[in-house]
């Protein structure tokens, strides 16, 4: 027993990364192998390798399960990494794309465009990015212009988020078919996703993730506070705007095919911080993996718990993530005693 404890303490970091990577791969595999219709592992592998394309099991794997797993992985990673970036850039642990209205900004832009130009749905990821960017700029302006405290920024974000959400509701009320293309848009979900719908957002997410990872060193400097960062030779304003634009791209692209999944961007960064600390690169990598795992696992639960009926993933997300987050907070408090 003592031997195990010593081993665990010594190799804590290695064990954490192995577990996280293993869990992420396991969730992806489970997402492909499990579902309301029984498909054998052999059939899944055959479908993935391009065999039996016309069979029902292959169609289920390729056109339903694979897009969902990819979509959940991409959206989870994007929202969690956007959360890390926003929290580090605003020096505010309470910030996240959901709370500050970044997701809602993207959602409103998508809703308006889909209502006014129903045929322009190919532009959804770009429009979502612009909506998210608009929300980020608004929050940044509010926090700068008013010299507001961290709490005020969060409160302003909640207000902005509510205004945008009301805007989405208004659009959907006036044009009921506006968001038909994005299922469960307001709760968030993957029930209607296809590879074609994910592709544009997926490309944006991949590029933005690379951009954020390459700026991890500068994010570390930014996290030291504006004055220290400036004295270390960082172009503070430019770096912050660039990182926030990348966060907006990530959140906007995720919203464009997954809807308003708010919780991931708040709890995954905080959960990962407990394990890897606040050094940006490990935190970003852990959050990308953790977000992907969490959302894929939640999506799997959403479609298997009451199969053949399906819950929107946003509901599962809140029911599983909420208690886990509270447990983390409780454990942290216990550790301080």
């Amino acid at each position, binding site marked *: 027993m003592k031997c195990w404890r010593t081993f665990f303490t010594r190799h804590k970091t290695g064990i954490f990364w192995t577990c996280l990577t293993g869990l992420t791969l396991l969730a992806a595999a489970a997402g492909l192998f499990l579902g309301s219709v029984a498909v054998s592992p052999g059939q899944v592998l055959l479908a993935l390798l391009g065999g039996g394309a016309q069979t029902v099991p292959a169609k289920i794997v390729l056109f339903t399960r694979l897009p969902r797993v990819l979509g959940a992985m991409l959206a989870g990673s994007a929202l969690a990494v956007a959360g890390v970036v926003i929290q580090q850039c605003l*020096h505010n642990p309470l910030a996240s794309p959901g709370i500050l209205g970044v997701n809602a900004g993207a959602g409103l832009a998508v809703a308006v465009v889909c209502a006014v130009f129903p045929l322009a749905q190919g532009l959804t990821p770009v429009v979502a990015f612009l909506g998210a960017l608009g929300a980020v700029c608004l929050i940044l302006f509010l926090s700068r212009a008013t010299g507001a405290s961290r709490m005020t920024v969060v409160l302003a974000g909640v207000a902005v988020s509510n205004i945008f959400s009301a805007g989405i509701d208004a659009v959907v009320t006036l044009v009921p078919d506006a968001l038909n293309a994005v299922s469960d848009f307001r709760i968030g979900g993957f029930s209607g996703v296809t590879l074609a719908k994910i592709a544009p957002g997926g490309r944006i997410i991949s590029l933005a993730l690379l951009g954020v990872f390459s700026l991890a*060193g*500068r994010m*570390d*400097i930014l*996290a*030291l*506070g504006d*004055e*220290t960062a*400036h*004295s*270390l*030779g*960082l*172009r503070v304003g430019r770096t912050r705007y660039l990182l926030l634009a990348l966060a907006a791209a990530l959140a906007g692209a995720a919203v464009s095919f997954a809807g308003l999944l708010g919780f991931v961007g708040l709890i995954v960064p905080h959960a990962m*911080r407990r394990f890897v*600390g*606040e*050094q940006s690169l490990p935190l970003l990598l852990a959050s990308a993996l953790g977000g992907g795992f969490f959302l894929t696992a939640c999506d799997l639960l959403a479609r298997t718990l009451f199969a053949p009926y399906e819950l929107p993933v946003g509901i599962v997300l809140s029911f599983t993530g909420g208690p886990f987050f509270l447990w983390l907070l409780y454990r942290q408090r216990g550790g301080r005693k």
Partner: protein
Amino acid sequence: MIRLEAVSAGYPGRPVLRDITLDVRPGEVLALVGPNGSGKSTLLKAALGLLPLTGGQVLYDGLPLEKLTPRERARKAALLTQSRNTPSVQALRMVLHGRFPYLSYPRRYGREDEAIARGAMARTGCLELAGENVAQLSGGQRQGVYLAMTLAQDTETVFMDEPTTYLDIHRQIGIMETSRELAREGKAVVLVLHDLPMALTTAHRVAVLEAGRLAMADTAERVYRSGVLERVFQVGVHRMDTPQGVQYYCVPRGL
């Protein structure tokens, strides 16, 4: 050498500094003293380009500050700030950030950077904390880590904004000793201090700010004799010879 020439600066609708001319000389500890709100921290910000000037100019080795890139500036002057964020990272990693101005692509810290960072930590007495999480250190230990980060920046000029605040007397004296050592090595050290006796005993020169203007900048002894401190701070300032050298102390005015 850094020179402030007729510098005026402040915040929108609130001018703070007016017409300040001051040299920051190598091999010298310069203490900036003045009552609350007299513009000490604003002067540091203006000298580092953290605040746009409304008049005058700041020269780094004869070059206007705005002609330098941020990295060039960061290789010439470092700042130990008064208030800052404390991320949950390893202390050595934090100190390594002092090497940021020297990084070239792909911006990874190398062995030489680590050796310099460890040397800076040894100097500020926090090397044994290298593997600890900064967020879990005491205030005094954190200050040691932050000072090590500032020293790892290896600049000709070091600005410190109230570096002794919240520290016990042992650590306060340690910071003053480090400042004198840095000056002996040829660096220019600028300290914003509230503790007048400490400023007068440590600094080679003392600059007294009063309502955003430079009331006087001279050796500690001359500043003391001029009576400017009594006028600006509204206290009695006295000196006495002790076996440990000249010491200063303050008493309420009229005593």
